[in-house]
């Protein structure tokens, strides 16, 4: 089994002194992924609203 | 296949082939310029003029790093591609991965004595990732192999 490689949480967060680079890279990654999780949902709501509005207009 | 589809397929293949040939020719034309550094052998062949700014790349020769007897953060070492050597002089902060036996890329110029005066030192890392334990196990294995080869060579 792989062992946890850090002695403490502080040790883990400091990443051997390269915290800025490691956590910076992971932060960019997290933000981009979250955006791609949220964005299609917003797009879907917009599309459904638009198509429903057009359908209603066509019926009148 | 439908003739119209066949024609479209030919267009697609033409675009792919055309762009490959065009870019291929451009790359061949610029080939040398796309290298990010010159090797010590290329420098010895006279591909770079003295005083011209360029990058040199090679390995830091084992045991060649000198810091003692120099001022402040001055450092001297030999960059090698195992064929030819170039002496490098540098003042300033070194990257963490600057080590003997490791790759190095230095930005600077050759002075009149043929010494490379570096203004920036970059460390070139290889593509092998491993833990300290694996590294020492690998080294031990290599030593054993080398010893075995030596022993085999001595007793033919």
């Amino acid at each position, binding site marked *: 089994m792989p062992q946890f490689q850090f002695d403490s949480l502080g040790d883990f967060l400091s*990443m*051997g002194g390269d915290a800025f680079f490691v956590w910076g890279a992971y932060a960019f990654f997290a933000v981009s992924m979250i955006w791609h999780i949220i964005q299609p949902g917003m797009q*879907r709501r917009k599309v459904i609203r*638009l198509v429903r509005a057009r359908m209603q207009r066509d019926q009148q | 296949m*439908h003739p119209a589809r066949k024609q479209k397929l030919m267009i697609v293949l033409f*675009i792919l082939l055309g762009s490959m040939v065009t870019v291929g020719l451009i790359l061949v034309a610029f080939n040398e310029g796309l290298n990010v550094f010159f090797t010590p052998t290329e420098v010895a062949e006279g591909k770079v003029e003295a005083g011209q700014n360029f990058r040199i790349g090679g390995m830091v020769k084992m045991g060649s790093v000198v810091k003692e007897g120099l001022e402040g953060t001055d450092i001297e070492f030999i960059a090698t591609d195992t064929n030819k050597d170039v002496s490098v002089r540098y003042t300033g902060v070194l990257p963490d991965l600057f080590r003997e036996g490791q790759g190095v890329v230095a930005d600077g110029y050759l002075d009149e004595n043929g010494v490379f005066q570096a203004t920036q030192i970059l460390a070139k890392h290889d593509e092998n990732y491993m*833990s300290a334990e*694996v590294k020492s196990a690998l080294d031990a294995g290599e030593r054993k192999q080398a010893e075995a080869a030596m022993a085999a060579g001595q007793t033919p």
Partner: protein
Amino acid sequence: MWQWLYRLGSPKLFYDMTTGFLPWLTIVTYFLLIVGLVWGLGFVPPDYQMGDNFRIAYIHIPMSVGAMGIYAMMACMAAMHMIWNIKLADLVARSCAALGATYCALSLVTGSLWGKPTWGTYWIWDARLTSMLILLFVFIAIMALRSAYDSENSGSKAASVLTLVGVVNLPIIHYSVVWWNTLHQGDSILGVSSQSANPPEVWSPAFFVGLGLIGFFFQALIRRTRNEILLHERRSQWVQQLLTSKQLQE
């Protein structure tokens, strides 16, 4: 002979098939990503040279490979769109571009953040970094070109042609570290035993993250493509029925 291709290209079939499939794909994706990232961040021994900053590789490498893979897929879709005039292929290609650009940008940003502590610089104009930056520009150019046309058909055609032209960049990125000398290291050869360079302990988390990112790409791609289908097929009967039924929440 080519009938099956047209049937597979039916937007309704795609929409119906992905409805049940999507939640499962999403669950598997998050599982793979979390396992790979936690493992890579905390449970792999530090590199003997770089220490802990090599943990950036667990997103950098899968993102780089992913960006190229997405481009290859987008090019296949562009070719299918051009040759067989399959509408769905164009909708998929359209959805690929934004995701590809994100993967490519993340490859560059994480690589830059890794370059500073290892090489000593955020950026160098070597062949690998430059060709990857060009890939990002190509992704952005394809999106821009598509939206620059008033007619959607013309935009699709122009984007397809540009996508095919850009394929030439893929072998250049891959072989850049072989054809020219670069500051970027070559591609790692995966070791099979724990006593070799790049042992399985080191690359296994990257394998999980890689699969997770492939899954993430496909689930985001499917969700985007479903939106495009609803929009472009809005005059078809099945979409109108779907939207009049109250079950379809916004």
